[in-house]
């Protein structure tokens, strides 16, 4: 499993799994603070972003694939939704810089491998899964174009 997963995503997963369960929430909170702002060209253009309806909070993602086939993921979520921001931050950090093929090869159950299901609840984790699947679909659409 470790060998198919891109390095950064594997690192993030191991970072979570090394911690006792209660401390994993704190790490997720740190990720939520690290979610970068979306690039200026997307600000005020909600039509360019895709709403992740699997998440309870209003979270939007934008996935770019550049001419070399390298992926960049951006996301916005309100400050009152730190769990969702944390999920978005993990995926933005883990997917940005990968090739389109690498992003598409990320297993759909990656969110469930972080050891967060019990501390966060399965329903909340499914929001992150929705985010990942939507990011992959955008990569598929944008690399086909």
């Amino acid at each position: 499993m470790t060998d198919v997963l891109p390095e950064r995503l594997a690192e993030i997963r191991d970072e979570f799994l090394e911690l006792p369960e209660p401390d994993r929430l704190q790490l997720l909170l740190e990720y939520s603070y690290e979610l970068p702002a979306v690039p200026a060209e997307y600000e005020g253009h909600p039509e360019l972003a895709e709403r992740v309806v699997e998440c309870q909070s209003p979270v939007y993602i934008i996935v770019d694939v550049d001419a070399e086939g390298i992926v960049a993921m951006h996301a916005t979520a309100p400050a009152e939704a730190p769990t969702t921001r944390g999920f978005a931050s993990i995926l933005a950090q883990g997917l940005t810089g990968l090739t389109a093929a690498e992003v598409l090869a990320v297993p759909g159950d990656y969110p469930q491998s972080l050891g967060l299901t019990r501390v966060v609840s399965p329903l909340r984790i499914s929001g992150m899964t929705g985010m990942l699947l939507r990011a992959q679909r955008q990569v598929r659409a944008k690399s086909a174009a």
Partner: protein
Amino acid sequence: MPVEIDTSSEKFAEYAEPGRLVTGDWLQARLGEPGLVVVESDEDVLLYETGHIPGAVKVDWHTELNDPVVRDYVDGEGFAALLGRKGISRDDTVVIYGDKNNWWAAYALWVFSLFGHQDVRLLDGGRDKWIAEGRPITTGASTPAPTEYPVVERDDSLLRAYKEDVLAHLGAGPLIDVRSPEEYDGSRTSAPAYPEEGALRGGHIPTAQSVPWARAVAEDGGFKTRAELDDIYRGQAGLEDGDTIVAYCRIGERSSHTWFVLTHLLGFENVRNYDGSWTEWGSAVRVPIVTGAEPGEFPGR
């Protein structure tokens, strides 16, 4: 020992049970007082960690109030262990607050009530109002001294309705559907902006009136006045004293908010929350469902 009630608000004085709400001023002046425990309960499991009322403890609805396996609440032993961990004693005054206009706070209050915890109140306006008023917030950990909370069996008979209870209730008393109009008429199965949580059919329970939960909320995020609430629930929805009432939503959280309004603010004595709500009813086999904007008739009567 219970802490005295908040008598500072003219608005509260009009409610059936004025002591069920506290103002920010009242709470801020009493933080740390023995016999008072402040509980934050939010939709987002991490929101508490970004800053909470000093000394408040967190109770999470997903991971702490729900049983991890069966779709049910924790049992008497689980509840005793939870409250013991949070430093709550059986005769403590508990003030709950949270995000989303106190949805989850009201839900937690309702679950506390299933276990007969007597003195449980809401902070009017919840987390957002507290912060908007510039009151203290900290990320410092709360370290409550554990208590021995007694094991009390949960009593579902008075405040909670199961699906079978709702079937028996059809045609016998009012039902209040507190979801959005789109969920009520069947054009969608989950709240706008909420995940599809597994209801297979859309619509509402026959005879249920649509009174979205947010109609009880004032501009400042607190509850509306007694007169405004009476107009909505007694005047427009036609609820009458003595009615046996069932409220429901999607998973029972928004209807806990309405349950609180009907029970504690308006004084209806027989209100049950159907926590199975639409995620159960909308997937159950052969239960009656009505679509469209009208309540509809119960076919069996």
